[in-house]
């Protein structure tokens, strides 16, 4: 089924996700896909492109336009043994399903003492930086990560997009799968199918000795660009790609921070009560005596996501990150 992809030398994240869905559907007949515009249109980002033609309307179909209905019905399907993979068109449009996700999807397994499991994947094209109008650039990860019972992961590159989505679909726990929209068209040389590190582990993307930049999803690229800039200033930056937001890979992050003794966490979402707070708090709890300086958070401001012409002032840039690192006292 993956010949189309296998012959592709350079794969975009959209194509990697599309192939992951195709291969998962081919491998397991209990995998079904539904949501808004996922059928003939192939999704507004074309992630499900061609899948209805290939698998038919009984495997992938357009639902009525109601997110609570989509998650609620997916729960019922999972009880009966299907493995639904559903799409929320944008972060903000998952909010109508908040009750079904938090009060049922996250809690059903615990409620029933492990007897009813819900192997459901919710795909969310997430975050901003694509010039979207209001409500199309939210970052909702902090809401999900704070909810016990949910697993929350986010790939930062095409290979992870493929491998992690396959793993998420195989998982018996509900997974919030956050796809950074701004990276959809990023390319990577690879042969599909590909298996990268396990979904619940963080990965060091670049080695460094002076500072650890902790990033995920869309900000991994920002962190790597920052590391380049910093190198010119003689600052050696290590970049950790979290990949899994819940659970959190304390071992990998801890090891990096013990080595560098300094860390900063990056995300697009507003800072206050954001995911970066958990990162800073838990790493400080565990590595306090290894830290030479407080863990910094370089994130979006505590404001609603701005309109297209203003988002560039909101998003963390390499310059802003370097400025922040320079606020630390650097003993010679």
């Amino acid at each position: 089924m993956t010949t189309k992809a296998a012959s592709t030398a350079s794969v975009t994240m959209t194509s990697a996700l599309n192939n992951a869905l195709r291969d998962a559907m081919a491998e397991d007949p209990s995998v079904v896909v539904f949501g808004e515009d996922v059928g003939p249109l192939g999704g507004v980002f074309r992630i499900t492109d061609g899948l209805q033609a290939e698998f038919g309307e009984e495997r992938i179909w357009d639902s009525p336009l109601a997110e609570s209905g989509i998650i609620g019905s997916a729960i019922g399907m999972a009880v009966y043994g299907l493995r639904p993979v559903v799409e929320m068109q944008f972060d903000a449009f998952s909010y109508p399903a908040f009750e079904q996700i938090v009060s049922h999807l996250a809690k059903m397994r615990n409620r029933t003492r492990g007897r009813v499991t819900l192997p459901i994947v919710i795909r969310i094209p997430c975050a901003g930086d694509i010039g979207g109008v209001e409500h199309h650039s939210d970052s909702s990860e902090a809401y999900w990560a704070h909810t016990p019972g949910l697993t929350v992961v986010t790939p930062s590159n095409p290979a992870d997009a493929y491998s992690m989505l396959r793993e998420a679909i195989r998982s018996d726990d509900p997974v919030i799968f956050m796809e950074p929209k701004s990276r959809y068209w990023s390319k990577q040389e690879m042969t599909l199918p590909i298996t990268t590190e396990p979904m619940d582990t963080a990965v060091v993307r670049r080695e460094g000795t002076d500072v650890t930049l902790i990033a995920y999803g869309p900000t991994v690229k920002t962190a790597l660009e920052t590391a380049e800039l910093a190198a010119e200033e003689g600052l050696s930056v290590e970049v950790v790609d979290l990949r899994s937001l819940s659970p959190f890979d304390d071992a990998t992050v801890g090891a990096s921070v013990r080595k560098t003794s300094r860390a900063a966490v990056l995300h697009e979402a507003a800072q206050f009560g954001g995911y970066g707070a958990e990162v800073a708090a838990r790493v400080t709890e565990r590595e306090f005596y290894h830290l030479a300086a407080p863990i910094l958070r370089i994130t979006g401001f505590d404001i609603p996501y701005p309109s297209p012409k203003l988002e560039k002032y909101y998003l963390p840039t390499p310059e802003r990150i370097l400025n922040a690192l320079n606020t630390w006292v650097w003993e010679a």
Partner: protein
Amino acid sequence: MSLKVETPDAVTLPSAKPLRLIDDSGHAAPAAESGGFVLPEPDALMSLYRRMVIARRWDVQVSALTRQGRLATYPSALGQEASEIGATLAMEETDWLFPTYRDSISVMTRGVAPGEILRAFRGDWHCAYNPHEHRTMPQSTPLATQALHAVGLGTAAKLRKDPIAALTFVGDGATSEGDTHEAFNFAGVWQAPVVFLVQNNQFAISVPISKQTRARALSDRAIGYGIPGYYVDGNDAAAVYAVVSAAMRRARSGGGPTIVECLTYRIEAHTNSDDPTRYRGKDEVDAWKSRDPIERLEKYLVSEEILGQEDRDSIAAEAEELASATRDAMNGEADVDPMELFAHVYGASRTSLSEQRELLQRELSESEAAQ
């Protein structure tokens, strides 16, 4: 889904008055009021009667245990036995039930052990029974949410070509929630094998139905989804059983969903912690007590000489037995294990959760040691 959606054949409104097969005085209702349904067979009526008597006795027993403080809370279905049991007995074992906190007697009638049902209300665990064993989901508290689960399960069964249906209870208050609409609509579009049993007991805690809708009846909504709707006398077990049986049969054989509104009345308080004197009068309650669903069927069965004294004695004995068994089950302390708190949150293991587990484990051994 591949389902072809065409305009529904007949666009007809449910009757303005609830249809019934047996009137308040226990006589067969005139055909004009039957909505074209016929009285179930005697043995079906007998088991309706038997299960209602047992359910009533059990419900009364559980309310008593709650007053004695053995249970944290219990939402009684007293007076709603006809719609609860009439609908439940219309289900096959292979069908799935999606109940609410109100529907314990339905869950019990499905075969779930009384003691297991009540562990949730005693506070042992959120849902103690295994939903797969009797194809009965946990009693849902977030209103209307379970209706969507029923649509999803029914749709999955349809995709797998399994001839089963799902039945879900939805309260009159819960019909105001967006999820009820989404469930009705998804079911209509997907032609899901689901029966929505809208149990109109005329109150949402303290709020009367007149503040939930301006429609004549909640079943008037069906037409807006292109699916059949029925307005039924919810205190007439025969009518509820006949209508829901037909709807479940149609659902199992690919005929799609049905909305059945049962007009009944919540005789007890919302739960033990509610004070109904604040929002409704004794007269209203008494008027509905006089329309008791069990007495109604009993009068009919006696006058038709279907129900004899021995039957009544044996059924009463059976009911007593269950009641005392339930008392016993609720006597003595619950055996709850704090360590189970960490056992079911995820299938996959989590280091951070294990750390928290160890913390509690340490605390418990220390406090034991301190003893």
